[in-house]
Every structure is written in structure tokens, then in C-alpha cells.
């Protein structure tokens, strides 16, 4: 399943300083949810210490997630079922002065 993943606000510093990724998720029995994607990102793309991005089973507090430009808190956060061509954006609010 092809989706777009974007990083901003400093979150890209944890992902090889690249802001846009087109990724292809391998097919699996159960539908892909955001929670699965977080671990997939940790395995495949995350370059810095995982605790700067993840905490428990979710993103670290202070990182906002937007699914197709909509706040993930409106979409059941980690339980949202990812659809084909979704664009998932991670915005850090922690990388400032």
C-alpha cells in the first residue's frame, strides 16, 4: 500500500533531514493502523534515538500528527486505519529555542 509520510517542525531532523517520503507498506492480514506505522517508521526510517520520536505505543508528547491535513485526535489517533494514498504528517513542536 502506497502512502506519503511527511515530517516538519524539526521532526525531519530525526529522519535523515528529509521532509517527504513516499513509502510502500507491505500487505498484511490486519489493516494497517497508525500504531503499526509508527513501529514501521522506527524500524525503517528513524535515524536518531527512538525516544525522541516514540513514547510507549504512541508518538512522543509534543509531536502533532495530521492525517490528510486533519488532526489525528479527530481520527482516533493510533487506531486510525490507513487508506491507500493517505498523507500522514508529523510536526514536532519541540525543536525550538
Amino acid at each position, binding site marked *: 500500500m502506497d502512502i506519503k509520510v511527511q515530517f*516538519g517542525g*524539526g521532526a525531519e531532523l530525526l529522519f535523515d533531514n528529509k521532509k517527504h517520503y513516499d513509502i510502500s507498506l507491505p500487505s498484511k492480514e490486519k489493516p494497517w493502523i497508525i500504531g503499526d506505522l509508527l513501529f514501521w517508521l522506527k524500524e525503517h526510517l528513524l535515524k536518531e534515538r527512538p525516544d525522541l520520536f516514540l513514547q510507549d505505543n504512541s508518538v512522543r508528547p*509534543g509531536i502533532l500528527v495530521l492525517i490528510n491535513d*486533519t488532526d489525528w*485526535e479527530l481520527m482516533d489517533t493510533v487506531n486510525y486505519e490507513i487508506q491507500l494514498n493517505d498523507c500522514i504528517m508529523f510536526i514536532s*513542536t519541540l*525543536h*525550538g529555542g
Partner: protein
Amino acid sequence: MCSVGDDGDRHMPSNVFVQYYDTKCQKCKLETPIVLLRRKDSYCKDCFLSGTNHKFKSLLGKSKLLRPKDRVLVSYEVGHPSTALLHLIRSGLDLNTPKKLRFEPVFVFLEDQYHLTKDERSQMITRAIAEAEKLKFKMHLVSFAESIMKDDVTIYLNHLNLNDNDGDAINNKFATKINNTNKKEVSNILRRNILLSIAKKLSCKFIFTPELSVDIAANLLTNISLGRGSQVPVDTGFCDDRDKDVKILRPLRSFDKKEVALYNVLHVLEPVTVRQTQDNQYASIQALAKQFINELNENYPATVATVVKTGDKLALDENKVAGNCKLCKGNILKPTEDLTSDESTSFSKLVSNELPDHSISSQERYEKVEGQFEHKAQVDNEYCFSCSKISRFLLSDT
């Protein structure tokens, strides 16, 4: 803030996910919401953006401090809040309605990111200048280290001289090695004083600083913990009027991180970002207060507003003010006959360090130690309580 045996959690609302797919924006009741604020308020894009703009302008308007043509120094810091502030000002100035902002902003970047390498800092400065230029603003540059060392402010445009050892400048202010809390405290006071000098050089009557509600709440707790309770109204309120010529205003104090970050995303603004410091959260009182507030904000978003609003109710009785502190310019209270908590602490210290003399009765022991204690009520101080604790480490006064 002890949480041992704290069973309050079961009285707290549980985080049950509410289905928002089919709901409508809370404001216009028409559009599909795209953002959920404070875990409960959903807004569509238009209502969110107009609400944000309105909140910014109404706080400035309500204060009735700014007059048309007033020059305002806007203190730029890297990150979401400053980026949003720049954009909010630009869109306010460009309005053609009576609500148009009419002050003249002047931007300054007081650079103090000493955890970065020289190259990273130089890139950061270039990007900050570019960010301002994109909105047709001009960025002035000032080096924090240079200002401290020379004890004077030099304002640069386009370029700043960077040195690898700039970070040591603050340490050179002190005779001995001091703890991180005091270091951070002094550096905040110096920063404030430098901003005031810059404002005076650029003939600005006001300064905007980009603190958000979480910063205000953390500052409030820090001030209380450091014995700066009497300075809470000026240090965390909307307006800091300690200086008689230049007022410091905090126009973003009712915004939270999510609001400014989303504002930037929706306007396709890319804030300048830098590597994070790997701060030990227990290294200083400031870091601890920040951590505490951030965690609260994550789990119970209403708490930050409660802390800020409670702080807003604190005011100082002007009749009790004796003068201003030499270092932080905060108020020094008139000495009173009452026993203050400061004195109680010193008394307790005295008693605890006294070896008990068992050859006399307890009544005599008490009288002996009480006789040694000097009631300091009549001593006039140059420094406020909190600064007097730091001042003995300082080489010279600023």
C-alpha cells in the same frame, strides 16, 4: 506536588475517544472539523484560523497600550511561536479593515543557541533572516555573548560574528561555578536587560516576546519556587512594566503549542528548527517546572489555563514596595515586623546547626538560640530576595 497515595485519577475524566467523523465544526456548525483543541473543541480550518487571528488581535486591542505608529521590538526565537508571531503581525498589518494593526514592528534575533556548532548557528541565522524577508521584514541581529562581554549592545544586519567559545561568556560572569538554576536565572535576567537596551537603541516603546501559555505557566511555578512571588505579575502577566520607558508584552500568552504549530502548517510556514538540547530535566528548577507543566498539559490540557489564570489574579500591593532590585529590576518589598518565610528558614537553619547543650534546660536553650537570631526586618536591601541569593556569586553587577 507529591503523588504518593494520590487516588485522584479515578475522579478524572477518562480519555474515551469520541467519534468526530460525522460532527461539524463547533463554531460554524457547517464544515467538517480538522482540528481538536483542548481535547474537546473541534474547529474547521476557516474557524480555527480566524479564531487564532482574533485571539491575537483582541489581546493586543484589549490592553489599549499600543498606539498607531508605535515602534515595537519583536524578539525572534527559533521555533513555531516566533514563526506564527511573524505571520500574525504581517497579516494584521496587511489588513484593509479598521481592525488593521497600526504599530511598526522591528525584529531582532538575540542569538544564544550555544549548544549548536558554529556552522549550525550560522545556518540558523541565515534561515531566520530568510524567514523574515519572506514576510517583507528586516531582521536585526545581536549576539548574546558579545553583549554580555562588552556590556553594550551592537546591532548587526545580515551577519553576526560567531565564536566557538561564545557559550562561556555567561560563565565568566561568575566568580565560582554555580548551579544550573542560578545560571539560567541570571541568563534570563541578562537577556531581558539586553532586549531592553536594544529596544532603547532602536527607539521602540514596546517589546513582544513569544512565550506561549505553557511557558507562562512554567515560569510562574519557577518564580514561586525561587522566591520571586512578588514578581509574578510582571514576569508572567501580559505586560512587564518594570522599565519605565519600555514595556514588555507577551501577545502569545494564551496560545498553546498545538495552536501555533497548526497555524504554521495551515499557512505552509516552515519554522527554523534546531537540534534539541539533551536537557536533564532535573538539572534546574526551570527545567523541572517546564517538564512538569508539559506533562500536565499532555494529560489534562485544562490545567495550564488554570495555572495561568490563577497567576493573573495575583497582584502586588504598591504600598508595600520599597524599591527595585539592582539586578532583575523587580520590586523589593518594604521590611515589615512580621516574620517572613525567608526569616523562618534562616531561623530553622540556625537552630538545626546548633549543637544542643544538654547542661541547660530546654527553656534556656530556646532563649539562647533566640538571642542569637537577628530580626532582619530593618535591613534595607539592594537586591530582591531571590537575587540576593545569586548576587554573591556574581563578579560585577549589571
